[in-house]
């Protein structure tokens, strides 16, 4: 059974205070690891796909990295508009099912 564990559950940062969110995963034959952002009352919004250990992707203040056991979402100099729940998910090779973690709720205070 594929498993995704995200930590911390909640994170409160001052504007400009950089930090990282963790996603630990267990999957047999990783097809892809995904990061999504979800605002209250909305569906998740796609951020990144990572395919293999050592891969990194960046978008504005966000950078996602991947090892064989975990992924990190680094947030550099966050702004209040970065406040959201960040979801990590994995898919197994040969399958379409995506397994999501429970998310990290990020609050950035001005």
């Amino acid at each position, binding site marked *: 059974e594929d498993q995704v564990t995200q930590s911390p559950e909640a994170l409160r940062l001052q504007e400009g205070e950089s930090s990282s969110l963790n996603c630990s995963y267990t999957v047999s034959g990783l097809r892809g690891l995904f990061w999504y952002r979800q605002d209250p009352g909305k*569906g998740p919004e*796609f951020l990144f796909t990572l395919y293999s250990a050592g891969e990194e992707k960046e978008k504005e203040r966000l950078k996602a990295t991947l090892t064989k056991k975990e992924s990190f979402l680094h947030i550099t100099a966050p702004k209040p508009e970065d406040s959201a729940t960040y979801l990590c998910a994995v898919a197994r090779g040969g399958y379409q*099912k995506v397994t999501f973690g*429970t998310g990290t709720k990020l609050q950035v205070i001005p």
Partner: protein
Amino acid sequence: GAGVSQSPRYKVAKRGQDVALRCDPISGHVSLFWYQQALGQGPEFLTYFQNEAQLDKSGLPSDRFFAERPEGSVSTLKIQRTQQEDSAVYLCASSLTEGPYEQYFGPGTRLTVT
């Protein structure tokens, strides 16, 4: 451009009633997914369509849940004889290619069973 739309946005059903939830994916998207999201949890996979073919329905919780995508575009998730435990947000997502990549989600339908 138009994103994924879902209707209704909110649905209240009495226990035992049947409900139908609609998803309009982005035009031309091959893949379509349905998820169930409980409060404070991540989305939980229900089923996957590639065009009109339902290739994975392993996440449907019981035979009361049924999904279709007859012409490879609009999809409907039907829940028969609703139970209180069916109360959740139902999310639909589509992606351009085959597989679970770069999914575009709709706003969801919040189902409350009383």
